[in-house]
């Protein structure tokens, strides 16, 4: 279970890096032209600042690229690891005014009708957290698919973990 999530995260990170690398060369070329006309210490400070800003940009881009929140069995509590990601999405939504559909899902254990309710409960937990970070009521819509739309079609614990999720879908 953990391995597949790590794999997913790795894929997400790789995609993010690939996306960033296209804009990077332009940045470094401007950096070097600035460097030549400034004193060393100022240049270092500036570079550090830029590196920090770049790291922050990348962190946010990474988090914005992650749009799936995973849940524990029969739970709708948002795990600590997803709080930062939701905060970043909330700020992005506030800044852009974008609409987001929150799709709630469950694994196949238990009954489909109960799982439809569980999927809604999870999506509402995410909606509530976005709300506390200032996202307005009009920007989100909750749709539950219960166990009807699994991300992974198998029947193992790993599949179940991948299926217990809420997906953020920007409209």
């Amino acid at each position, binding site marked *: 279970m953990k391995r597949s999530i790590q794999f997913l995260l790795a894929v997400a990170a790789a995609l993010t890096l690939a996306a960033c690398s296209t804009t990077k060369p332009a940045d470094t070329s401007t950096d070097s032209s600035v460097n030549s006309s400034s004193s060393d210490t100022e240049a270092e400070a500036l570079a550090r600042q830029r590196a920090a800003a770049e790291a922050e940009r990348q962190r946010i881009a990474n988090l914005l690229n992650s749009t799936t929140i995973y849940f524990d069995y*029969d739970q709708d509590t948002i795990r600590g690891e997803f709080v930062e990601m939701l905060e970043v999405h909330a700020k992005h939504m506030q800044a852009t005014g974008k609409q987001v559909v929150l799709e709630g899902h469950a694994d*196949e*254990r*238990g*009954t*489909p*009708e*109960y799982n*439809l*309710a*569980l999927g*809604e*409960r999870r999506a509402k937990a995410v909606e509530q957290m976005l709300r506390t970070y200032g996202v307005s009521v009009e920007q989100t819509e*909750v*749709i*539950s*698919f*219960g166990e*009807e*739309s699994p991300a992974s079609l*198998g*029947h193992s614990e790993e599949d179940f973990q991948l299926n217990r999720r809420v997906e953020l879908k920007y409209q």
Partner: protein
Amino acid sequence: MYNFIKSLLFIGFLFAFSVAKAEIQIFITEGRDDARPIAVVPFKFESSSVVLQPPHDFAKIIADDLARSGKFNPTELSKLPSKPNTLNDIKLDDWKTLGVDAVVYGSVKETSPGTYLVAYDLIDPYNDKAIFEADIESGTYPIIPQASHLMLLKTKVANNDNFRWAAHIAADEIYEALTGEKGAFATQIAYVEVNRSDARPYQLFVADSDGFNQKRVFASRRPIMSPAWSPDSEKLAYVSFENGRSEIVIQNIATGTRDVIASYKGFNSAPAWSPDGRKMAMVLSKDGNPEIYVMDLASKSLNRLTRHYSIDTEPSWHPNGQSLVFTSDRGGKPQIYRVSVNGGEAERVTFEGRYNAGAEFTPDGNAIVMVHQVNGNYHIASQDLKTGNINVLTKSRLDESISIAPNSSMVIYSTVQGRQKVLSTISMDGRFGMPISSTTGEVKAPAWSPYIL
């Protein structure tokens, strides 16, 4: 142009409607030691035309039905001592030696192209006082010694379209004559099949109770859930995501006419017809969280039965229409509760186990059958409502979507076998079960029809 394409699609849809798919296969995996031995002799076929055989093997359909009930064990054809087709051919000693409780034999005669006269009898080789039921007019059977062993003497007219159905009715008559309880072979099941390679992967089917005669009644790009038969067996209610989120639809099976009856904010789910067919219990989350409602189908007015911040779902009507059971996690974990049709305080019904859900009343109203978790596995279990005793019926681990045969003999449900989602049946005492396996996609959400007249 757009309208033209739309009408093409519509024609395509109608076409899809009428095309019957290949049958889903049924095979038996578990035997049963107390099944009664019975001989079903292949029927003789007579035809004056070029037709060499009837559209289906009438005797085999009867034998397979009886075997699927778990109550009968039809003799292998190679072990039959003789192959009689009329009462005159019967040698009682042959069948006593074989040790069968009963013998079915008969004939199929093509009377005109596509029309068949099917004659069949049921005899008890031991009991010469079997004499049988009233629909045999006096004097219509031969006055020979074997006649006193007759339990059934029947004829039917069938055509190519209803030939299998006629055989299921015959199996019901034989089952009732031998067990004293009504048969449920001439019934249907509705279920959802997911064929992920199809453009519209989510498909609602209706098939005969043996899995044959599949007819697709609806197909969608988005999920379909929870089919439920109307008490007159003419309509299906189900949940469809065709418009992006869950809505409750009622569809007339014969005409294909569809009405969206619940499309409230939040989700719309778990439709359950009242026994009189005039109301429908359903679960709506329009007021913020899932609650049980009863809709009057004529006026579409809603009456809310539950008021609780927890999940309340999966209503099932008591056969007398006066109360319902439902699933709620108001106590922390999903358990079964019971509430009056007029609302009021709900009473907890299940106490054993951490997860009980999806309960259905048995047709006599004395028990419920539900999904019951044991050691992390989800089984089918029944609970006697008087004693509270729980009987776990299945060994499989991912069982769900219970539906009970109208004669209470069997439960159909969905489960996972290997890596495939399949339908399976289990006898009400848990002693006889078998999968109904699809040759193609995942099958789930079975619903057993009421008796079809």
